[in-house]
């Protein structure tokens, strides 16, 4: 469904992403991990249209989307969340999601937007009351709102950016289960970008590891977790240390 080939991003003389290729199959959850500065956010931003790649191609359902404006990519069916939730505080919770439902699906029908908003809010477990304000939400609530906004745009592919930062362990588990539920029940393909390896490994079908802008490993979670290059990157000598460091980074 998504085929990325030879993706490069340079900022001045610095190469943030160098020659990364991968593909994502319909219905899978791909984990994208790597330490800070490894280029995963840069890849994410190119997929979502925040900035164009310096070279390479991004094909979604057979069509080139590299360099398209963010709203066009959303309209093609690629939704995204932000690492730090970015709610619109002047709008109610419902209006936040309604907005995404309206413009995310091309801006044609408000009735359809309302329906999408209700479904998305119910899915993530937020109230569908039209007047509830964003100010009443805590960290976990804001993450849910972020996800509901992305879902309301009607994505076929969801780019989830480090959804677990700032959550406690029970909330992390819930959030991870939520992503799986979104895939299982709505059939949405997911790319999950995350610092925290532990929870991610439990949910994803496949993992891709980045370091210094290059892909260093890819495969099943069990295989990748045992890859010496991955362990080296995560500074650990055994799996427990790896997880501890990764969890720290996510806090």
């Amino acid at each position, binding site marked *: 469904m998504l085929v990325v080939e030879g993706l490069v991003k340079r900022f001045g003389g610095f190469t943030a992403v160098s020659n990364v290729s991968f593909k994502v199959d319909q219905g899978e959850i791909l984990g994208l991990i790597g330490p800070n500065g490894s280029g995963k956010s840069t890849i994410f931003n190119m997929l979502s249209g925040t900035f164009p790649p310096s070279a390479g191609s991004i094909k979604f359902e057979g069509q080139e989307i590299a360099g398209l404006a*963010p*709203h066009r990519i*959303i309209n093609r069916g690629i939704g995204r969340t*932000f690492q730090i939730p*970015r709610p619109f505080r002047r709008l109610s919770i419902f209006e936040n999601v309604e907005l*995404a439902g309206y*413009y*995310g699906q091309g801006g044609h029908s408000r009735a359809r937007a309302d329906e999408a908003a209700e479904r998305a809010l119910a899915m993530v477990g937020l109230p569908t009351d039209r*007047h509830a304000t964003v100010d009443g939400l805590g960290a976990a609530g804001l993450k849910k709102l972020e996800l509901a906004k992305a879902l309301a*745009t009607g994505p076929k592919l969801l780019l989830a950016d480090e959804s677990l930062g700032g959550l406690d362990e029970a909330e992390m588990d819930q959030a991870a289960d939520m992503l799986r539920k979104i895939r299982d029940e709505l059939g949405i393909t997911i790319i999950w970008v995350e610092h925290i390896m532990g929870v991610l490994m439990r949910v994803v079908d496949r993992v891709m590891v980045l370091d210094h802008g290059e892909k260093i490993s890819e495969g099943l979670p069990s295989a990748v977790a045992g890859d010496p290059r991955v362990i080296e990157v995560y500074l650990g000598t055994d799996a427990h240390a790896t997880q501890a460091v990764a969890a720290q980074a996510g806090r």
Partner: protein
Amino acid sequence: MNARLAWPIAAVALVALPFVYRDPYHLHIFVLILIWSFAYTSWSMMGRFGLVSLGHGGFMGVGAYVTALLWNHLGVSPWIGIPIALVCAGGLALIVAYPCFRFRITGHYFALVTLALSGIVLQVITATRDYTGGSLGYTPERTKGNNILALQFEDKTVWYLIALAVWAAGLVIWYWVDRSMSRYAMEAISEDEDAAAAAGVDVTAEKLKITVISAAMTALAGALYCQYQMFISPDTVSGISVSLQMVFAVVVGGIYVALGPTVGAVITLLLAESLRIFFGTKAVGWDNLVYGVLLVLFIIFLPKGILGSLMDRLKSGGARPVAARKPA
């Protein structure tokens, strides 16, 4: 009294007013208040979303001068001239705003770019004095008595009703935007453009849409002012002082409420008229000084303006808390 009854009664009273009350000076003030209220409402269409334009004096000048020039030089009726003027103002808005929005010039920088627009329109009017009369002002050629084709009327009642209709239309447009998804989009954009884009909003297009509507409305106010006063000068319908006056009136009246700009127009016109009557020519320019001082005080102490704050006070105790908004 409930609101369902209050609106029709207010509407009937406003329409009936010139037939009952015929003092020409007061009617004149009413007409001016309605025209400026419409101009301020037009400005607030953008201003309420944090798009602070200091260029609206320019749009008003385009509306007034294009209409008058077409009439005097080419004999084009204002009925055709005004739409042409609106298209010119809309086009000018596109030319100035598109690069701003495309390259993300926002906040103070946007205000500065639009400030330049005010200055440029003023300079163009002054520089082409052979056609526009320059700083001495300009008068559309008079026809005799009431002439619908020339949009010239001796009777103040007619002008009052025209201004009332246009003002009401301005409020309808305000409400129409307020109820539409465009308001959500603009609120979102004013908070976070990237997040708005991630919700699927075409940020540049939405901003352009509201800007062009606002500019065209302002140009209509300018054309109306010209046809009513039958005299325009760069100082009264264009330039930076007119732009600043719009900002001041809207901030004082209330930037986030439909009738805020109208309240602002009432206050600014009464202020200017009182200064003129009590101090005469000695007070020329005082109103601008008072505006300046009041603007600072309002932004600090009453950012929602007079009407906005009053409505908040009435609402408090109601079910829905009103989120605090920052002044633009």
